[in-house]
């Protein structure tokens, strides 16, 4: 192909159709200018010219500029512009992406932690624990719980107090448990019948031991899920009515509990009647502690006070003397746990917010560069009829698309990180509507906050100056 200075369209006819006909003369109306043209047959006088009919057609505007149609057009041009600068767009969106991912991961983590804490709160928040006092030997404390002072009667008396929903004396011991060839070392809890409701146990097979069993100390046992699996999975036998050995004593299985889960060891337990534990396992008349459930967490302190007064009377403790028991509540501990979780949340969200701000500044920076780069384009758009609002919206939507893309990918990554970490930490994985909606709100706000200034700057450009700038 030889090089030529001719433009390739040299032969393209003005009408896009082959030229035809003999030379013709077009005269202007006044004759002042005579136009002699060899191809002026293009205009045929009687009918309107193709241009006139086209212009007439195009002047017919039955449409209104709707906000939605402009939104669609702006969205299209925004996506076009972002794809044209795809590498830059990607890096800019990365700032938002990392920020949102951090927010979501932080939220998932703290929500998992607080869900775990509230599980504990549900079981501890309304409870009062009465333990034995501290033995003093020649003025030296022997350590907490070294006295044996609490009795079954104390527990029953506490049960009579107002606001007490349930109570149970406890004896904790551990022993070797044997069924057939299977044996297992586990915790044995001597309790009464109220523990089932206090600790929200569900019976999977059989039943909890009866009030009669509790009163008379019948050697019956309710197995936790872990113990049941350890003893009976090998033989596959129905555990109900089977005899097992706890230590050297024979107990009959009356019930098996559904697992409480949560990855804790609370299913590795056997519940027996408190009197059976006293007589057959520990050989004592005392109990290790008394757990009390209050009707409302708000009454916990009042009940604790009443228990103290009651036990002082029952144990004949003179005023001013040291109590031979301890009354413990969890209110303070729970408050501290709640505070710690809140501080953790603030910390993580604060770090994420800083990261998002940095991302937002990145957006603003890129949008400013983009406005400067495209001054010329803005000039054209204004010249052909874009209002200042149109230009502003175009750049705002560009920032919005950038941020939302970053936000959506960030949400995905944040959830993934949250899922992995909570799984590793054995915490519940909680996804709330907030944590899904948040990235959209946050990235949209960032787009508006950091995109508005460049967008307004674009819309305030002088079209005359803007057109003059070189591409």
């Amino acid at each position, binding site marked *: 192909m030889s090089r*030529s200075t001719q433009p*390739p369209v040299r032969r393209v006819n003005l009408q896009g159709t082959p030229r035809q006909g003999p030379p013709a003369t077009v005269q202007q109306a006044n004759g002042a200018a005579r136009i002699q043209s060899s*191809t002026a047959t293009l205009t045929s006088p009687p009918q309107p010219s*193709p241009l006139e009919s086209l212009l007439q057609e195009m002047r017919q505007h039955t*449409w209104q500029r*709707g906000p939605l149609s402009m939104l669609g057009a702006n969205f299209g041009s925004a996506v076009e512009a972002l794809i044209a600068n795809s590498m830059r767009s990607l890096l800019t969106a990365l700032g938002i992406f990392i920020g949102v991912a951090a927010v979501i991961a932080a939220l998932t983590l703290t929500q998992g932690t607080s869900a775990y804490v509230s599980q504990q709160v549900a079981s501890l928040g309304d409870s009062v624990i009465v333990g034995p006092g501290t033995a003093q030997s020649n003025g030296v404390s022997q350590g907490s719980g070294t006295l044996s002072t609490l009795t079954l009667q104390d527990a029953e008396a506490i049960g009579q107090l107002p606001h007490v929903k349930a109570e149970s004396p406890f004896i904790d011991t551990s022993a070797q448990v044997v069924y057939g060839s299977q044996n297992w070392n586990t915790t044995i809890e001597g309790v009464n019948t109220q523990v089932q409701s206090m600790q929200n146990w569900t019976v999977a097979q059989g039943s909890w031991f009866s009030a009669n069993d509790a009163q008379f100390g019948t050697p019956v046992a309710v197995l936790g899920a872990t113990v049941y699996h350890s003893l009976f999975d090998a033989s596959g036998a129905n555990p109900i009515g089977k005899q097992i050995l706890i230590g050297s004593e024979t107990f009959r299985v009356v019930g098996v509990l559904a697992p409480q889960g949560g990855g804790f060891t609370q299913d590795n337990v056997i519940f027996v009647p408190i009197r059976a534990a006293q007589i057959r396992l520990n050989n004592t008349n005392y109990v290790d502690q008394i757990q009390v459930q209050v009707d409302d967490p708000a009454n916990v302190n009042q009940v604790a006070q009443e228990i103290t007064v009651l036990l002082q009377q029952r144990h004949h403790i003179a005023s001013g003397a040291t109590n031979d028991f301890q009354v413990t509540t969890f209110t303070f501990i729970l408050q501290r746990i709640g505070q710690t979780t809140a501080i953790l949340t603030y910390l993580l969200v604060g770090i994420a917010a800083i990261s998002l701000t940095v991302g937002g500044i990145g957006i603003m920076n890129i949008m400013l560069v983009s406005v400067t780069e495209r001054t010329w384009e803005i000039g054209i758009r204004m010249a052909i009829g874009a*209002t200042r609002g149109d230009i502003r919206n175009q750049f705002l939507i560009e920032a919005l698309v950038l941020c939302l893309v970053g936000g959506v990918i960030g949400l995905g990554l944040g959830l993934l990180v949250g899922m992995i970490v909570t799984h590793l930490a054995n915490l519940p994985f909680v996804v709330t509507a907030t944590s899904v909606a948040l990235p959209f709100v946050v990235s949209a706000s960032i787009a508006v906050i950091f995109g508005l200034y460049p967008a307004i700057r674009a819309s305030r450009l002088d079209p005359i100056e803007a057109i003059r700038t070189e591409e």
Partner: protein
Amino acid sequence: MATEDAKTPQRGPSPMSPGIPPTIDEQPTQPEWAVGQKPVPTDITKQATVPHATNTVASQADETITITSGQQGKPVIDVRHLAKTYVLGKTLVPALRDVTLKVYPGEFVVVLGPSGSGKSTFMNLIGCLDRPTSGEYWLMGRLVSKMSSDELANIRNRLIGFVFQGFNLLSRASALKNVELPMIYAGVPAREREIRARKALSLVGLGNRLHHKPSELSGGQQQRVAIARALVNGPAVLLADEPTGNLDSRTSVEIMAVLQELNEQGLTIVLVTHDLNVAAYGKRQVSFFDGRLVRDEVVTNRRIALDEWNKLHAQAEAQPAQIGGQQP
């Protein structure tokens, strides 16, 4: 051909110049003008306007236009005593002084003048890209000189088609998308946009290059896309600012042929140039100097681009070696 007379008026008013434009004296037909003049009583405008008061009456120019162009009907563009003064620091720079002009449907007006003559300022005002300091601008019977910037955007969109020296097409978008752009701002639905854009591109002979990007088109083709874009909302007037400034002489002839053809078919065109050769393609020539309209005349020895183009074509065929067997 335009003569060298355009250079005669040097400073201040020049009573000798034949085509001196209308001046500031109160006209019974334009009572609004006096009101429009009031807000800007700067020293410069006074200087500029007072001597003019002794000049020819405004109606003369109007009459001349009517006679020479032989056009009937209401003017597309009706500019009355238009002035534009820029403020540079503390000095007032008058870019345009007291310009009165009417352009009727079907005219091909060339605005001629050296740089600094005010022709670009005039073009910006006519194109509704800027607002005058004083005076009135009526476009299709609407007083646009008092409109808000959003209203002006709408006027630019519906009534004015721009063709620029540098084509000013969006490089990312195809020819079709570029031509669709003004219709987006007019609220035309997508399907209708495409139909119209195709028609407009066929009209300028680019029906087979709809999906080419500007970088895949020659300069002449790009300018045709720009012309199609200018036409697509059915403008009342096509404003061309040095449309051949970036083109070689052959392509310039080609583009001028397109513009002349569009004009023959009834389109009103206002072309701004500093080039006397380009100016000779128009039907009427108005010359600016020092911000004033100093000459308004009919082009007598008009150049016909299509004839020139055919001649060039014939030459090229007579010397096939030069164009190296280029196919149509």
